[in-house]
C-alpha cells in the first residue's frame, strides 16, 4: 500500500481490435497518479492522455462505479477485480499499488465471454442462463398480499446472501476451469430458500443447469476461487445447494 500522494505506474494492457483480432499487450506508463484515484479513474486519465496524442483509447466496461452494477470486468495483476478482497475494480483505489509498479490488465477470459474489444467482453451468456429459469412465474397483478406468506428472517436473510450477486462474472474469470457454477448456483440457492420459488423449484434447476452447460462454461472443481474474488462475497455453499437441488430434481 502506498503512502505517497502521487505514484508512477507502468501498465501492461490487453488490446484487441475486435472479436477476430488475435490481441496483444501494450505498455503504457503513467506519472503523477494520485493515490486517491480509483483504478478506473486512472484508466480515464490514461485515455485522456492517449486522446490528446490522437491515439485510440482503451475500451473497458464501467457504469455505476460504486460496485453494484457489475459492469467492470478487469483482471488486474492476475486477479479478477484486483488485489483487494470484496472489492469490484471500480472501488479499487490506486493507494493499493506501489510507486513504479507494473500492473497487468486483462479482460475476463472464457469461451463463454468472447472479447468484443480490448477489455470489453460479451456476458450475454449470463442473461440466457437467467432467462432459462432464474425467476418466479408471477404475472403482474397476480400477487397475493405481501404479508400473506410469512418467511422466517433466517430464510429471508439467507436468500438475500445469494440474491446480492451483481452478475459481474468474476467467478468465471477467476475460476481455473471457467465455471459459472457460483453465478448459476446463487440464483438457484436464493429461490430455494423462499416459498415463492417452490412451485418451479425442480424445473428451474434443470433448465438453468442445462443452459449453463450449453454456454460452454467449464466444470466446477471446488477451488473456491470464485468466492474469494466475488465483490459481494457469495459463498460457494450456493454451488453445493445447486447440486443438491439438481439431484433432488433428477430423482423425483
Amino acid at each position, binding site marked *: 500500500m502506498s503512502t505517497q500522494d502521487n505514484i508512477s505506474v507502468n501498465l501492461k494492457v490487453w488490446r484487441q481490435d475486435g472479436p477476430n483480432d488475435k490481441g496483444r499487450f501494450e505498455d503504457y506508463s503513467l506519472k503523477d497518479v494520485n493515490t486517491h484515484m480509483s483504478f478506473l479513474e486512472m484508466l480515464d486519465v490514461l485515455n485522456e492522455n492517449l486522446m490528446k496524442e490522437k491515439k485510440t483509447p482503451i475500451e473497458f466496461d464501467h457504469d455505476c462505479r460504486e460496485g453494484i452494477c457489475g459492469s467492470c470486468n478487469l483482471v488486474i495483476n492476475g486477479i479478477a477485480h484486483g488485489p483487494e478482497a470484496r472489492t469490484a475494480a471500480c472501488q479499487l483505489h490506486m493507494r493499493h499499488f506501489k510507486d513504479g509498479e507494473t500492473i*497487468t490488465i*486483462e479482460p475476463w477470459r*472464457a469461451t463463454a465471454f468472447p472479447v468484443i474489444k480490448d477489455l470489453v467482453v460479451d456476458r450475454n451468456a449470463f442473461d440466457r442462463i437467467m432467462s432459462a429459469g432464474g425467476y418466479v412465474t408471477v404475472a403482474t397483478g397476480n400477487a397475493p398480499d405481501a404479508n400473506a406468506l410469512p418467511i422466517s428472517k433466517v430464510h429471508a436473510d439467507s436468500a438475500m446472501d445469494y440474491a446480492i450477486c451483481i452478475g459481474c462474472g468474476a467467478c468465471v474469470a477467476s475460476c481455473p476451469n471457467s465455471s459459472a457454477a457460483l453465478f448459476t448456483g446463487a440464483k438457484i440457492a436464493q429461490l430455494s430458500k423462499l416459498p415463492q420459488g417452490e412451485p418451479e423449484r425442480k424445473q428451474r434447476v434443470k433448465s438453468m443447469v442445462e443452459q449453463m452447460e450449453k454456454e460452454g462454461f467449464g466444470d466446477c*472443481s471446488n*477451488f473456491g476461487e470464485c468466492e474469494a474474488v466475488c465483490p459481494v462475497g457469495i459463498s460457494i*455453499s450456493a454451488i453445493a445447494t445447486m447440486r443438491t437441488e439438481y439431484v433432488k430434481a433428477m430423482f423425483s
Partner: protein
Amino acid sequence: MSSFAYALQTTIGRKILTGLTGIFLTLFLIAHLSGNLSLLIPDGGEAFNRYAEFLHDLGPLLWIAEIILVILFLTHAYIGISIYLNKKKARPVNYSYYKSQGGPSKQNFASRSMLISGSIILLFVILHVMHFKYHLFSPETYMTSYDGQEMVDLAKHVEVAFLNPWIVAAYSFVMILIGVHLKHGVWSAFISLGAKNPKITPVLYTVGGVVAILLAAGFLLLPLYIYINGGLS
C-alpha cells in the same frame, strides 16, 4: 438420451460422480491401509499373509470387488481427464499472469495438481498391482505355510521390495502424492455431494486435510519402517 443419463454428463453430474467414486476409493484406501498395518504385528507376517489368503479365497466375490474397484478408478480418472479437457475448451486463451486472491480460496498446490497427482497415482496403481499381485518384478514367488496350510508369503515380498531404496523412494513419493490428492479430494467430495452449511464446510476442509495426512503417513510407515529397520522384525 434419457434425462438421467444426461444429468450424469452435466458438470454437476460429473462432479457428483467424481465425489462418490472418490469417497469409495478413499474407503478402499482405509481398508487397504488397515490390512497393511497388520504387517507391523511381530508375528513374522502371519496375520498379514492369512489376511491376503482370506481375500484370495473369496474367489468370485473378490473378482466382483476388483471389477467394481476398477470401474471406480476408471470412472474417477475418466471424469478427471474430461474436466481437464473441458477446461482447455472453456478458456482457450490463458491469462498471461494469474494469481489466487487467497482468503476463502482453496486454490493451492494440491487443488491445482489434481490431474497430475491423479495420473501418477493411476500409473502407480497399475505397477503396484503388477508388483504385488502378479509378482511381475520378483524373480520367484515366496511361499510359506501355517498349520500345514501353504500360501504365498506376501509379507516376504513386501519386505524384499522395501529393502530396495529405489522402491522405497518411489513409494514414498507416490504416498505423499496420494496425501496431496486427498487434501483437496476429500473436501471437494463433500462439497460436490452437497455439504453447504458455511459453519460446517471449514470443518470438512480440516477433516479432509487430516484424512489426507493420516492416510499418507499410514502408507509411508511400512516402507520406511522396513527400510530403516533392515527388515520386518
